[in-house]
């Protein structure tokens, strides 16, 4: 009978990890889906969020304030980057944008190191969620339960924003046919900047959310990119639904992989990716390829 709480405990772990992956990757998939840009510096915005968060907490002592303000700060940085570096490149096609964002990885990593030093830092667990709880016989940190609830709520909110609001409609229209949308009097430049900033802000938000669980150090921007990219590729570039489903699948696969196939933990995420892409090269919910 111990199998059920044991199994359930690991399934909860997998869910929490999957939701974290979702929060991490959703900004990347949105920016691609809306703007056709692969933002390789995505991990850097995640990192900036974590660092902004820990500075805000050091100054104000309030985790929730940091959770609110840090993503906004990161969004502003994203907006600045889009206006100065990316906008000139829209005419030139996706390759140059990819390459530019790659160069930005180096820039951000060194800037963070310069400002905050290379020491390992960390965001302390908020007092409200610093204990562990037992659910159906399985122990899970209450913070991870918070992450699950928050992440799923975020998924619903994003879906509603994009599908059900006027703002979402404008964005979708602007991406589908920018000339027409501009012709209707909508400032398309501002829409693009806004979307990019929003995506960066989402990345920053996930940096703060993941903060209490993980540590922060300057190389984290480059290293967090690979799991995010894989989730997005598996789910389908540009698909919000794909991002959620893909990250939940990978979350469970990785978690149970660590329990049942310990030697393979480094490879698990690639195996999942390879399997899914073998049968659906565009990802689970990606646009069908020509």
């Amino acid at each position, binding site marked *: 009978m111990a199998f059920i709480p044991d199994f359930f405990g690991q399934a909860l772990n997998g869910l929490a990890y999957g939701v974290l992956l979702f929060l991490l990757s959703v900004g990347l998939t949105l920016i*691609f889906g809306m703007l*056709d840009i*692969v933002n390789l510096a995505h991990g850097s915005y995640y990192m900036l969020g974590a660092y902004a968060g820990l500075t805000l907490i050091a100054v104000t002592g309030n985790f929730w304030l940091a959770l609110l303000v840090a993503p906004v700060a990161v969004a502003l940085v994203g907006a600045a980057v889009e206006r100065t*570096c990316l906008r*000139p*490149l829209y*005419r*030139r096609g*996706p*390759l*140059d944008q*990819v*390459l*530019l964002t*790659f*160069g*930005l*990885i*180096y*820039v*951000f*990593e*060194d*800037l963070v*190191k*310069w400002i905050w030093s290379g020491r390992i830092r960390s965001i302390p667990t908020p007092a409200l969620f610093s204990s562990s709880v037992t659910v159906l016989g399985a122990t899970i940190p209450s913070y991870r339960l918070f992450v699950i609830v928050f992440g799923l709520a975020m998924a619903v909110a994003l879906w509603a924003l994009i599908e059900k609001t006027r703002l979402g409609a404008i964005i979708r229209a602007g991406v589908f046919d920018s000339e027409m949308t501009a012709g209707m009097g909508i400032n398309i430049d501002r829409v693009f900047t806004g979307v990019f900033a929003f995506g960066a802000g989402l990345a920053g938000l996930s940096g703060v959310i993941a903060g209490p669980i993980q540590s922060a150090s300057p190389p984290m921007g*480059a290293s967090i990119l*690979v799991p995010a*990219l*894989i989730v*997005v*590729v598996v789910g389908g*570039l540009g698909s919000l639904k794909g991002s959620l489903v893909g990250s939940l699948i990978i979350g469970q696969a990785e978690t149970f992989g660590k329990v049942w196939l310990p*030697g393979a933990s*480094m*490879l698990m995420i*690639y195996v999942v*990716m*390879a399997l899914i*892409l*073998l049968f659906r*090269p*565009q990802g689970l919910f990606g646009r069908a*390829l020509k």
Partner: protein
Amino acid sequence: MTTARVVGFAALVAIVAAFPLFAGTYPVKLLQEILIWGIFAMSLDLLMGYAGMVSFGHSAFFGIGGYIAALALVKSPGLVSALLLPALAAAVGALVIGFFSIRVSGVYFIMLTLAFSQMFYAVTFQAAWLGAEDGLVGVPRPSVFGWDAASPRVFHAYLLVLVVLSVLFLWRIVRSPFGHVLRGIHDNEGRMQAVGYPVNRYKLLAFVIGGTVAGVAGSLYCQFVGSISPDAFLWTTSGEALLMVIIGGTGTLGGSMLGAAAFILLQSMVSSYTERWMLILGLTFVFLVLFAPGGILGALRGRVGIHS
């Protein structure tokens, strides 16, 4: 090739060949490292500049070449181990990865190739028989037609010959009808397809050729350092090759060698003077992409400005 170009190339080769005669051990080693990375970057330029395929997984073939060379040279230090086996292994690797990756294009291609090379990283990192995270050390240099490449002079000559052969080979490919078709595909894939070219097959062939040359570069790197580690497979290694191609000028072949020189000199020298070399490198790259997308060679030819 114009006479001027031939003379210029020959002069360059002569200078490189004579370099050990008037420079110290360390500068010669820097030069050799530049040559090896230059071949790697050139093979990537074949894909990027001519076939229009941006791959972040090119390091997979570099690593395969390096590991196969390490395993083979320890058993039998000859040219077969040093060149033939690594090239073959890299070609096979490129065929397999290419088969899966070329089905998709653009951004998907970038991400898929990236993921593949990371997969190799994970596998070699875990594999105890491949030295795990430390990789393989103590790799001997081969004996080349009776000469022992362990001798610095022999190695320099051996390396130079291979570099020249690789350059000429890639040059030939790019100038051939095959190369023209590649460029046509880069310019307008739809049109080429409509005219009847089996576009994917051409792309796959380019991918395999590029991958094979990258494998040779990886094998040379392993012989140069005497060891190989999983880091060779990192997507950031591909990224660095990409940087070299861009810095020198995409689609120029020779630019990649220039880019390799610029990158390695920057990395070695700047890091001795300032801790901020990563920032400098990143900003240099950002500025290049924005203002000089043709790289150094492009700038020399007048392609400067935002809307090039």
